[in-house]
């Protein structure tokens, strides 16, 4: 019978194609949701088996053997992706009007699952390209410029990876990970691959995975691509697809770790190549968070924030210590759930109000209470407030960064998390609180499937927040050693402890005491927004009582020196130059008169003559 791996891998694609072909309103959504649910169901079913030994499966396609393996690590990444994928499917049942969206969303789902499961470079590259193409088509529908920018950057990344694969293939003669790791491990000593070539291969892989993970110089596609597509798909786009980039960095360690160490040695007793990745991650965190704080559009804010959070993961992997990997892997999960939740909340807001700019939103807390509650959970988790999953993973990364003696990188995280707190509160203020614009009076709560999707992602936030041990014990299995100790509720690392349950209990006690003081006081009465202190002046509904536009103007003024430079404008100029070069090349060469063509022939003859004789 067909191997489960194949079912996990191709169920979404087949469901997508069927949904696209049938294109009947009710059935299409049902198929889509089933297609997205199958991988998660099978992964849960396979959990007990993969704990002992991984499941292998390989198929041969046009002379290449594509090997797939479900081991502890790929199970972890695949489970995170399918959880967010299922939430996306529920969300898309409401927000997507076209069967076109279903086809390409589920195709990118298959792509990302394939990337996590594949054990050889051809399969990896094939599914990586498929994932990029499918997510590109989702964006192409709505905005050509952003989608082309996204596609060009990720195709440059993919082709850089192809050249690196080719060079490795030329040197090691093998394409599957196991033998490449073996050959590179032995080669580290003999050094048949020179350090220059290792540097090139490392640089190429860095660009490839950096583009997908959105590392700073290559992050310009993220805001456009994330905001110009169906918002519930973006939950998957930024929740799971960016993890492929992070997974790539992990792959770099597994395959070439020892070779890179042999080639580049250490710098201040950190692995040099890891040091580079850590610094890329740190810069990404700071730059993306600063940009996120200054955004005016809700989607752009979350796009930059997503780039920043993936920067955390890169930073954690860059530390090189096992604790760093544990922190990074935990943050993969927590980022997927809280960022996915954020995007679903955005989808609900845009669906119900049709607005995307902060300046036309406000006071939705009463109108959409459930979405607001989900948004609050996501806010607490992203800002890293203790009882939530976001804090547990961020805490691990802090531990790892400081105990890995990388102080400036740890400083960058402090700044990054403060900025995260700032833009998340900005989102809360601009959308949920303050005075409600008159045209948002009749806003209703989001439809049921979207609420299910949100609940699907909010519960893990709470569960893994109060009991982070669940995740860390599994991560210990991935990393093999007892990296993070303690039971379900308490994380114990060599240098620090964090008892999530006790912190939650303390918070509850505190709230109870404060509640008592609150209840004791005089009975409160509700007053309208207009009954507010404007230094004595009477206020009516038409007054604009909230600051929704450029909320952080002072910060923009303080950073005014840095904001002059932008990678985005730089890439636009480069693209323009390339197109003008193309035009000048065409006019220069194919200029249309036969005399010059025959001169070309004469020149080639001359070269042939010279070439032959010399």
């Amino acid at each position, binding site marked *: 019978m067909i191997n489960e791996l194949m079912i996990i891998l191709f169920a979404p694609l087949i469901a997508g194609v069927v949904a696209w072909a049938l294109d009947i309103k009710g059935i299409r959504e049902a198929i889509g949701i089933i297609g997205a649910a199958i991988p998660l169901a099978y992964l849960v079913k396979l959990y007990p088996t993969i704990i002992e030994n991984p499941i292998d499966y390989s198929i041969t396609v*046009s002379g290449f053997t594509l090997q797939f393996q479900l081991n502890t690590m790929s199970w972890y990444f695949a489970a995170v992706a399918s959880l967010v994928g299922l939430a996306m499917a529920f969300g898309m049942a409401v927000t997507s009007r076209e069967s076109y969206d279903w086809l390409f969303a589920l195709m990118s789902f298959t792509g990302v699952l394939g990337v996590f499961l594949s054990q050889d470079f051809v399969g990896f590259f094939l599914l990586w390209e498929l994932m990029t193409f499918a997510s590109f088509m989702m964006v192409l529908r709505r905005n050509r410029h952003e989608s082309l920018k996204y596609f060009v950057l990720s*195709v440059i990344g993919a082709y850089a990876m192809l050249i690196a694969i080719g060079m490795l293939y*030329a040197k090691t003669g093998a394409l599957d990970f196991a033998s490449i790791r073996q050959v590179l491990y032995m080669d580290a000593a003999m050094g048949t691959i020179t350090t220059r070539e290792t540097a090139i291969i490392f640089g190429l892989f860095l660009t490839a995975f950096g583009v997908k993970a959105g590392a700073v110089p290559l992050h310009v596609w993220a805001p456009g691509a994330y905001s110009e597509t169906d918002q519930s798909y973006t939950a998957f786009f930024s929740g799971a697809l960016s993890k492929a980039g992070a997974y790539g960095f992990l792959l770099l360690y597994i395959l070439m770790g020892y070779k890179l160490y042999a080639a580049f040695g250490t710098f201040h007793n950190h692995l040099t190549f890891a040091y580079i990745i850590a610094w890329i991650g740190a810069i990404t965190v700071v730059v993306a968070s600063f940009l996120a704080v200054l955004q005016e559009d809700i989607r752009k804010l979350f796009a930059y924030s997503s780039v920043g959070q993936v920067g955390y993961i890169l930073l954690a992997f860059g530390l090189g210590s096992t604790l760093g990997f544990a922190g990074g892997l935990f943050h993969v999960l927590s980022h997927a759930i809280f960022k996915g939740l954020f995007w679903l909340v955005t989808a609900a807001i845009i669906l119900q109000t049709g607005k995307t700019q902060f300046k036309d939103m406000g006071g939705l807390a009463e109108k959409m209470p459930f979405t607001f509650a989900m948004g609050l959970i996501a806010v607490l988790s992203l800002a890293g407030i203790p009882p939530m999953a976001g804090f547990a993973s961020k805490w691990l990364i802090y531990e790892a960064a400081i105990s890995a003696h990388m102080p400036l990188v740890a400083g960058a995280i402090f700044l990054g998390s403060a900025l995260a707190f700032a833009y998340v509160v900005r989102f809360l203020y601009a959308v949920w609180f303050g005075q409600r614009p008159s045209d948002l009076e009749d806003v209703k709560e989001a439809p049921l499937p979207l609420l299910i999707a949100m609940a699907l992602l909010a519960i893990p936030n709470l569960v893994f927040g109060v009991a982070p041990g669940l995740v860390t014990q599994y991560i210990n299995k991935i990393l093999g050693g007892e990296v993070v100790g303690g039971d379900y509720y308490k994380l114990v690392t060599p240098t620090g402890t964090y008892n999530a349950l006790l912190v939650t209990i303390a918070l509850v006690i505190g709230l109870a005491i404060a509640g008592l003081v609150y209840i004791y006081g005089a009975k409160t009465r509700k007053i309208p927004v207009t009954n507010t202190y404007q230094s004595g002046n009477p206020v009516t509904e038409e007054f604009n009582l909230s600051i929704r536009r450029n909320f952080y103007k002072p910060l923009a003024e303080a950073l005014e020196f840095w904001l002059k430079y932008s990678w985005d404008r730089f890439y636009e100029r480069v693209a323009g130059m390339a197109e003008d070069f193309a035009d000048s090349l065409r006019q220069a060469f194919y200029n249309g008169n*036969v005399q010059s063509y*025959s001169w070309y*022939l004469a020149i*080639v003859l001359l070269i*042939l003559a010279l*070439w*032959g004789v010399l």
Partner: protein
Amino acid sequence: MNGQYASLLIALPLISAFFVPLIKGLGKKAVKYYLVLITALQTGIAAWVFQEVYTTGKPIIVMAGAWRPPVGINLYIGHFAALFVLIVAVVSFLMAVFSIRAISVDPIDKYAMLFLLVMLGATGMIATGDIFNLFVFMEITAISAYALTAYNKTGEAAEASIKYIILGGIGSSFFLIGIALIYGSLGTLNMAQIAQLAGGMDATVAQVGLALIVFGLAVEAELFPLNAWAPDAYQAAPHPITAMFSAFVVKAGLYALARILYLMQAVSSWHSVLKLLIIMATLTVFVAEFAALRQKNVKRMIAYSSIAQIGLIGLAFALGTQSGVDAGVFHMVNHAIVKALLFLAVGHVAVSLGGAEMEKFEGLGKRMPLTAFAITVGAIAAVGIPLFNVFWSKLRILLATLGAGYSWAAAVVLIASVVEAVYYFRLIHTMWFAGEGERISEGLAVSLMLLFLAALVIVIGVYPDYAWSIAQKAGNDIFNVADYIKNVPLMGVGA
């Protein structure tokens, strides 16, 4: 039905070409259906030959007038020739069906005759085993191609064919000088014997001879500096003819180049010629892709893209390794299908909407959904997206290039294919997501053909094993010169 019936492949188009004036008496319609009939017959024979060669595994040798080579001329239909003759026949059949609707200019009998002669020339070039016979068939193809380019009787078509004539003429004359040199020093015209004796030739003569032949064929095979005629010729030629140009006329030239290149392996300057060809091929890809970036006419854009893909095939052949040649052949097959699909679809749009400018393509998804779908599948395949056929061959070529150590060539090709992705996806966006229009009825025949080709693209993409095995056998046929010599029954006469 023994192997000798394979000679019908040459005889049938030749005879039927000269019957065309008689059929003209029965009316224009009859001529078109006659053309379809002949190409259908040719496809049948080609399919039988393909099946025969691939089951028995032995090439079919046809000796003209039962004279044994090297005295007589022999047709050597090996794995590659069988495969490609079938492709030539199938594409000609499809284009013949398309011409019924696409060709409205009056001297239809002349069109039919030239059509059959082009098909004859291409088949002959691929099947022949004699170098001079190769030149003769190349001349037939070239001259009928010149005439067909000017068939539309517009100023632009005349200018394009003049360019083609001048450059083609120079090229083929140098090719003839090359053959003369080789014939002078070796005394034989049969390719197998040339391969046998090539080692013993005087170094400089062999070097100059090889260089001239390669130069002559490079013009026909559209390598970088020599392909200036190609974009205008593609654009000016009638739509079915452009598809034939890109699908097999150029490929016949490329095959001839590869065949002679690998025959003359023993020549001392072989490696330097290969290096030159690699540079020229990479530049072809680079210049053609960049030239296509800001094209307003979609047909010219796809012409540039076709030149670039052919440059890629040239690069694969010039690598000089077995995996390179296999990848090149596989890419030839895929490229033939994809370009036939694209030119057919664009021609169909040009015929029904009167022009191939970009504006005509706005909102095509709403007006001609099936053609738009065909163009989309073709474009996505041409870019090299997985689950489509060109991806596998492009991956093979790049791995072979990197394996051969030319990482710079691979980098340039990849940059060029990024550019290709940009202009193809711009086209897809204008077709599906911009512009309005109500649905127009599309011809049944053309729609069926489009669906057939699109299905072929996706089937090879999803399950490429069978196509890859054929390509491997065909590649082995070219690369493995020792087998070639062994198969040809040479008499023991001559130097």
